[in-house]
């Protein structure tokens, strides 16, 4: 009986240790389709902040004797990666919308939920914010933006504390974010 409890405990531990990164990995988007935009785009910005750099940022932030830095360290402590792709085009509709829709299609997979979407006729703007949850914990965020001359995709992998993020907005070079209850529909312009 004792060994049964012991093995159950070990299995549970393994599940916690191995299960969390796997869940976090699921929140990653495949950017390979976007590479086709590279040759057409006038300007390209690619940001990859993953394991090593995040560990470095955590190491620095933890040592900095500043309460706000400590909060940032806490906010990024679980993050696995931040990836950004921005493509700017010289002329309107120079890219193939199917390439962007392929990214949006990836976010229709089970686990992903659309948190907000904005559709505006001005500049043919489409913004979608998707979140992924594992139980009560948010394990990823994806933002897909397409305009007449711009395409941008942001993918954050790992647990994100929205309350902490809102608290930190406007501090330590973190852009100001106004999160209000029921604000999701305010920005929608269909």
């Amino acid at each position, binding site marked *: 009986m004792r060994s049964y409890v012991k093995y159950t405990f070990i299995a549970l531990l393994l599940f916690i240790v191995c299960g969390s990164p796997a869940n976090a990995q699921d929140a990653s988007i495949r950017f390979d389709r976007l590479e086709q935009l590279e040759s057409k*785009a006038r300007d*390209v910005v690619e940001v990859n902040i993953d394991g*090593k750099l995040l560990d*470095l940022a955590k190491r620095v932030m*933890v040592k900095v004797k500043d309460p706000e830095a400590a909060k940032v360290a806490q906010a990024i402590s679980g993050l696995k990666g931040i990836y950004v792709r921005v493509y700017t085009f010289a002329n309107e509709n120079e890219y193939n919308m199917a390439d962007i829709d392929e990214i949006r299609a990836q976010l229709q997979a089970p686990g992903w939920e659309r948190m907000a979407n904005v559709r505006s006729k001005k500049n043919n703007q489409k913004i979608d914010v998707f979140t992924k949850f594992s139980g009560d914990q948010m394990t990823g965020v994806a933002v897909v933006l397409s305009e007449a001359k711009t395409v941008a995709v942001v993918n954050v992998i790992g647990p994100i504390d929205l309350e902490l993020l809102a608290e930190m907005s406007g501090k330590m070079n973190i852009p100001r974010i106004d999160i209000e209850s029921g604000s999701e529909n305010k920005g929608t312009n269909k």
Partner: protein
Amino acid sequence: MSVRKKILFALAMGVLVFTFAASPLEAKDGGDEYGKVVKHLKTKYRAKKVKVPFMWLARFAVGVVRPGGVKSFNITLFDKLQFSRSTLDAEMNAALKDSLGPEWSPILRVRSREGDQVYMNMRESGDSVKLMVVTINKEGAAIIRARFSPEKLADFINDPKIFGISLNDEAKEQEKGKISEGHGAKPPSEPAQQGDEAKKDN
């Protein structure tokens, strides 16, 4: 030779040994990667190297003082690059991939059709972090490599000091306040003494 002269001579020899011993170590520890990128820009785009005066002194000073945890750095500037805007990004990507190896992670890449490019790569090296930044524009290019300690960087953020001199604005203002307070406390009837005190404060 007096004892004082002997000490000074020993110190000078120590500095010389450090200077010459440190350079090959640095070259072995990633200098080759840097050299490959520099060589690529120089040969592929027939770039002309811009001489930065007293760079050796700045590098030596950084090696000794290690400001902000920076253990070493290198900068190479080029001008008059001859490149094709359409192939530059692909060529640079391939060159960086060949030169830097798989342990380097690309952090940032900015590519513009106008010819402006930025490539930032990073890798861990023991307890240090190596950073390499390559920027290219119409006029020229800059290659910057730095090796720093994240822990020392955090210490520097907590208490920014170089050679014991605080770079912290608050600390500076406090010092200024102390000086002005010191001046304010002096009786106006003793101008000569006031001047002496000011000299002492400075």
